[in-house]
């Protein structure tokens, strides 16, 4: 009890001193300072620099988005196989929260690849791509494929500097996928509806995904694929203008 009283009086005096100090010593005022600082402009500027660097080297780049397991890596692998057969030189950047499985899959096609681990981050950003580009032989490339982290929300806010954005969804994610994430579809150029070989087993109607994708982004090209059995690869090549 006595101890508590001491504490109380201390805090009483403490308060009094704080109250008096501005009067006794220097005065303070509150000012409002205009900042107009754009938090995401640094990423946007870097993305523009990346794009300019790629264009300087005559490289066309594609950024693949989509949920984990939708088929991004397999689709890029199929594209790389086709393009290599046509004598085109490809490279890939594998973005993942951790691990290097996708990177190994790209390297197995004997193309230059870079593994970018985002650590705790949920998306790639232009700065990470900037550093990945430093590791690629840009003078010897025609096409660059970037696989983004499996996430349908964040990458919308972080352009990387690629020319074409592709979003990959699969029928195994359910037929309400597009309705749940309209923004990513609205800001993509090509929409792939993958794993249509599993549509019947999943009791999902790819037509619903197609219809929703079309209304989310009437300007996008929509491609149905079964990457496992190489169906739709030609259509995707056409849609990407490869």
């Amino acid at each position, binding site marked *: 009890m006595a101890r508590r009283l001491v504490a109380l009086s201390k805090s009483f005096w403490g308060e009094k001193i704080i109250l008096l100090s501005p009067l006794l010593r220097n005065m303070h005022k509150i000012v409002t300072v205009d900042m107009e600082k*754009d938090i995401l402009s640094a990423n946007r500027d870097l993305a523009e620099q990346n794009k300019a660097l790629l264009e300087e080297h005559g490289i066309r780049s594609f950024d693949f988005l989509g949920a984990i397991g939708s088929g991004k890596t397999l689709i890029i692998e199929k594209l790389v196989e086709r393009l290599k057969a046509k004598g085109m030189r490809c490279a890939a950047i594998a973005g993942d929260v951790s691990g290097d499985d996708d990177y190994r899959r790209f390297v197995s096609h004997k193309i230059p690849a870079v593994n970018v681990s985002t650590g705790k981050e949920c998306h790639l950003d232009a700065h990470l791509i900037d550093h990945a580009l430093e590791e690629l032989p840009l003078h010897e490339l025609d096409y660059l494929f970037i696989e983004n982290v499996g996430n349908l929300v964040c990458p919308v806010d972080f352009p990387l500097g690629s020319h074409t954005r592709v979003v990959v969804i699969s029928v195994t994610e359910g037929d309400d996928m597009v309705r749940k994430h309209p923004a990513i579809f609205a800001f993509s150029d090509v929409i792939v509806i993958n794993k249509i070989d599993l549509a019947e087993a999943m009791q999902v109607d790819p037509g619903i995904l197609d219809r929703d994708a079309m209304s989310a982004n009437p300007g996008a090209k929509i491609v149905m694929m079964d990457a496992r059995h190489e169906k739709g690869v030609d259509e995707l090549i056409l849609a990407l203008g490869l």
Partner: protein
Amino acid sequence: MHEFSVMSQIVSSVIEEARSRNASKVERVTLELGEFMMLGHAQLKFAFEVLSKDSLLDGAMLDLRTVKGEIECGCGFKGEASPREDSLHQLTSAFECPKCGELAKVTGGRDCIIRDISMVVPDV
């Protein structure tokens, strides 16, 4: 999902500005968020509270303002994007031109800007 990393950039920019003005405390931060940004307001506020602890921002108020999206259409329309109430895609219908119904280009509403900061500075 990246509210935390975006907010930590905001907090460090504010602290840098406050330090350069010898501020003893930041009272309020006004943040303008574009309608088309994928950042949750509740998560941003939470991140702000956590990140401002024991800094010049401790106890400061975060004034979050939504900035309307803007679109530009081939038909000449330029202005605020207004989502249709009946739309399945609340967000994407905002890109339709209200004048001609065609798909219009998004020209605003994808920014995250620190508008201003109120702080306590020495009166000299």
